[in-house]
C-alpha cells in the first residue's frame, strides 16, 4: 500500500506529498505522523504540499487536523508550497485553516520552524 514517507531532519520531521492525496492515504499519514512524533519527540513538522494540485474538502480538513494533532503533541507545524489553485479552492470551500501556519517554500518554512522552536 502507498505510504507518504516521513523524513527526520534533526529535531524536525519533513513530510513531502508527491502523489495525489486520496482519503485513505491522508488517514494513514495522520496515524504515521502521530506515531513518528511520539517516537522521535520531534519539535517541528514541515508539510510540503507543492506537488499537490487537487484538493477536496476532506483533504483540506485533514491538513488542518494533522497540523492540530502535531501541535497538541508539542510539535510546531508549517504547511509550505500551497499552489494558488489549491488555496482558492480551500477558500471557496470555506476552509480557512486558521490554526495552520504557512510559508511559501521549504526554506522559509524551515526558518519559521527554527524561530518558533527557539522562542519556546
Amino acid at each position: 500500500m502507498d505510504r507518504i514517507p516521513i523524513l527526520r531532519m534533526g529535531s524536525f520531521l519533513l513530510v513531502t506529498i508527491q502523489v495525489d492525496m486520496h482519503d485513505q492515504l491522508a488517514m494513514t499519514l495522520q496515524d504515521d505522523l502521530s506515531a513518528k512524533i511520539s517516537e522521535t519527540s520531534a519539535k517541528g513538522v514541515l508539510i510540503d504540499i507543492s506537488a499537490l494540485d487537487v484538493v477536496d474538502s476532506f483533504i483540506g480538513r485533514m491538513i488542518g487536523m494533522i497540523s492540530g494533532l502535531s501541535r497538541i503533541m508539542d510539535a510546531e507545524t508549517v504547511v509550505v508550497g500551497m499552489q494558488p489553485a489549491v488555496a482558492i479552492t480551500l477558500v471557496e470551500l470555506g476552509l480557512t485553516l486558521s490554526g495552520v501556519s504557512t510559508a511559501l517554500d521549504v526554506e522559509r518554512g524551515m526558518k519559521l520552524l527554527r524561530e518558533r522552536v527557539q522562542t519556546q
Partner: protein
Amino acid sequence: MSILKPATIDAIKNNEPTLLAGWVANLEQGGALSDNRISRDDVSRQAKEFLALLVSASATGDAADLSNTDWAESRQFLETLSRSRAMQGFDSYHTAHFIFSLKRPLFDLLQKTYASDPAALSGELWAISELLDTLGMHTIRAFQKSREEVIRRQQEELLELSTPVVKLWDGVLALPMIGTLDSQRTQVVMESLLQRIVETGSDIAIIDITGVPTVDTLVAQHLLKTVTAIRLMGADCIISGIRPQIAQTIVHLGLDLGGIVTKANLADALALALKRSGLSVTKAG
C-alpha cells in the same frame, strides 16, 4: 409558405433603376446620409447589391422563412451591413431603416403591376411586407449582436487592464485595485496575485483599494477571501488605501475585518512591509 409570384419578381427586375432611385431617396429622407459617415455611392451600391440578392433568393425561397438556405446570402449580406453600421456608430433606427425604406418603392411598383387584379395585389403586398419585416428584424438582431460583442470585448479588456500586479520591492508585491469589485473580478485578481506570489516568491502582498469606490458586505467578503488565500499560500497580506468614507462604511455595516492588517495609504503599507522584511529606510548623509 409564401413564394412571390414570378410576375412580381420580373417587375422588380425590370424596374430596378426606378426602385433603387426611390429607395435611395427614401433613405436620404430618413437621414441616413445627413452626416458624412457614409456616402451616397456606398448606399446605392449596397442597395443595388441587396436588391440583386433579394431577387435571386425570392425566386425560390419561402418569403416567410428566412432560416432556409435560399436566404443564406441575403442574411449574410445584412449581417455584414449591420456590423459595419454598428462600427460606424449608427443607431438601430438607421440600420433598420435601410430595409424598411425599400417598402414604399416596392409597394408603388406592385400597385402599378397589379392594377387590374386587386386580389393578387393584396396577396403580394402581404408577402412582400412580411418578407421585409423579417429581413428588418434580422438586421436589428445582427446589429444588436455586434454591439453586444463590442461591449463584451471591452469588458474583457477592462478586466485585463484593471488588475496589474506590481513589484514594489524584493519580496513585496502590490496590487492597486481600481473599480468595483465583483465576484468575477475578485477571482481574476486573486488568481493573478497568487500566481505572481508563487513566481516571485514574495512574502508580502499589498492590496491597495484607493480606487475602489464603495465597500459593502460583498466586497468585504471578497477581500477576506483573497487575504485568506494569500495566507494559505504562506504570504502575508496588507490592505491599504482605506479612505475615511470607506472606513466609516465598514464600521457602520459592522463588517469584521479582524485578522487583516489595514493601512491608510500605500506608503504606510510599504513601510510596514519593509520593516517586516527587516529593512529600514534612512536618509543618506
